[in-house]
């Protein structure tokens, strides 16, 4: 039954203000880059259909605002997410330090079932800049991701469309995996409920 059902994957993009979340999303969804994006307020909604190994999935992407003041909004947008993308800017070490804070914030607000196994993907954006401006080394980022349980890491340029499709392919696959796990769990829970009901009926007889 689940194979015939339209598969919706909900993905949340988090990270400090100005790291390029909107640019990443626009590059992935519309294949374009612009210098003229306004700061995101609250969260923007985007969608994209993908084919993963013969299976068509629809990604619902929530591009969130980076400013701390908007964090209390999280609950309204994070619920039911299948994957969370954490973005930092390779020219901004502070934005890299904050990646783990964004992860914690997400886990608190999204109320996910298995925090240890929830799929995160980390993206270091703006690798198109001069080497001298890159202040977060790949090595440092790799170590960080390894420590958090081998999170997938991508270095991207939304401006020059580098590594975008590769990153979102992994995001989509991880989200799909998560969605299927959730579904399995739900069915499992349903089964328990049915058993309880029939037990009750048994007692009444």
């Amino acid at each position, binding site marked *: 039954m689940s194979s015939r059902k339209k598969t919706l994957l909900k993905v949340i993009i988090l990270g400090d*203000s*100005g790291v390029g979340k909107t640019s990443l999303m626009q590059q992935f969804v519309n294949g374009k880059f612009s*210098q*003229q*994006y*306004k*700061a995101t*307020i*609250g*969260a*923007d*909604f985007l*969608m994209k259909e993908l084919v993963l190994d013969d299976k068509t999935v*629809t990604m*619902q992407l929530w591009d969130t*605002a980076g*400013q701390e*003041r*908007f964090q*209390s*909004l999280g609950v*309204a*947008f994070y619920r039911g997410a299948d994957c969370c993308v954490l973005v930092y800017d390779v020219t901004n070490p502070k934005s890299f330090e904050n990646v783990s804070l964004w992860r914690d914030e997400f886990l608190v607000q999204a109320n996910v079932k298995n925090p240890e196994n929830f799929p995160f993907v980390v993206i270091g954006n703006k690798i198109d800049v001069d080497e001298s401006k890159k202040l977060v080394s790949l090595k440092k980022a790799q170590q960080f991701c390894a420590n958090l349980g081998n999170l997938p890491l991508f270095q991207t340029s939304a401006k020059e469309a580098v590594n975008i499709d590769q990153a979102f392919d992994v995001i989509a696959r991880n989200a799909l995996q998560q969605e299927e796990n959730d579904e399995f769990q739900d069915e499992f829970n349903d089964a328990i409920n049915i058993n309880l009901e029939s037990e009750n009926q048994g007692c009444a007889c």
Partner: protein
Amino acid sequence: MGASFSHLGLSNDVVSSVVSLPSSNTGKKSSSKSKNLQRWTSSGLSTPRDSEHYTDLDDDWDSNVENCLTSVNSQPKFIENKPTFEYPLIRKISSGVKSSTDDGALALYAPHILQEEESHKELEEMNAKLSRYHRFKHLVEESTVDMDKLKKMAWNGIPSELRPISWQLLVGYLPTNSNRREAQLHRKRQEYLGLIEQEFTKEKDAQTWHQIEIDIPRTNPRIKLYGFKSTQRSLERILYLWAVRHPASGYVQGINDLATPFYQTFLSAYIKDETDVTQFDPSTLPKDSIDAIEADTFWCLTKLLEGIQDNYIHAQPGIIRQVNELKDLVRRIDTELSNHLDDENVEFIQFSFRWMNCLLMREISMESTIRMWDTYLSEPNGFSEFHVYVCAAYLVKWSDELKKMDFQAIMMFLQDPPTKNWTEKDVELLLSEAFIWQSLYKNATAHLRG
């Protein structure tokens, strides 16, 4: 003289059969009602009103207080930079209407080539525009401006030439007594420069400054004016100063948008009629003028934000309240749409958070926003209460379309509604619809919340 809605696409008959028009009497009534409502609201909310709890530094002045002062000792002996005070009282009326009161002048606008009826209609429109302009001009040139009258007229739109002074009066920055204005403006502009000096010579709050710096290039990026260095430096100073003086909220994204209608409007008073303000590089102006525009923008922005500061404090309770009010309102106005949104699991906060945080500025053009603010500034609580009715009118406008859509389509539609090219007429229709909803539901809402 009753307010006319006919030019908003509503016949007077329709409007008056449903609601009372904002004539001066009903205007007073609704303003006292809204005060009660506000009092009620503030006691009913768990979040304290800002004025009681936050140490905001700019709450200690009001041009109304100025108005009450006797003029003894009030005129400074010397006004520096006298020429810059050339307060943009009245610029020559532009946009196709000459400032002559002589009826004969209208003949200029009746090119004989036009067919009788069309030219008649155009003539009538010109005539109406001209007479409206003169009535307006007369009103703001009075030695003591009748604010009730000004609000009543401004509600229906302010002629662009008179907008700078009208906005400053409506927001409570400029004293209604014209004898007090020069001194007040001089004092507030000097005060602003002093504050800038004070804040920009000490170490900056790094986080606030960083956020403002990355947002400035992202402010109205498609309007040329906001790409000029001079504009960007002015906005930077205005926003940073406001942020450090209002620590309970600090700078929140979206406040940058709210500064721009003031900035652009006040700037327009300093440039030649035929120049389009959106293309103008302010660095070509004398420093005194730039300082004056900046100071006026800062104080007016401060006034506006005083009314909606709980939109930007921790957890943004003002916005949450408005989103909930919008939801309640739409349930009453359009139950089918409300049910459909529920069925599709669309949450109001998902699409209307930005409507509240940026006062619909992301959905409509700058021009439309400026026209909308004429009305907001004329309403008792335009930005905090009337705005919710505007949002409701804005949403139910698309009811037929939305009811045919699923979650994704609804979200995509509301993400980018087809209103960026709205004309003044569209905005005015929206405002008049909002006015009707407010007249019908304002008390009902208060009653239910009680």
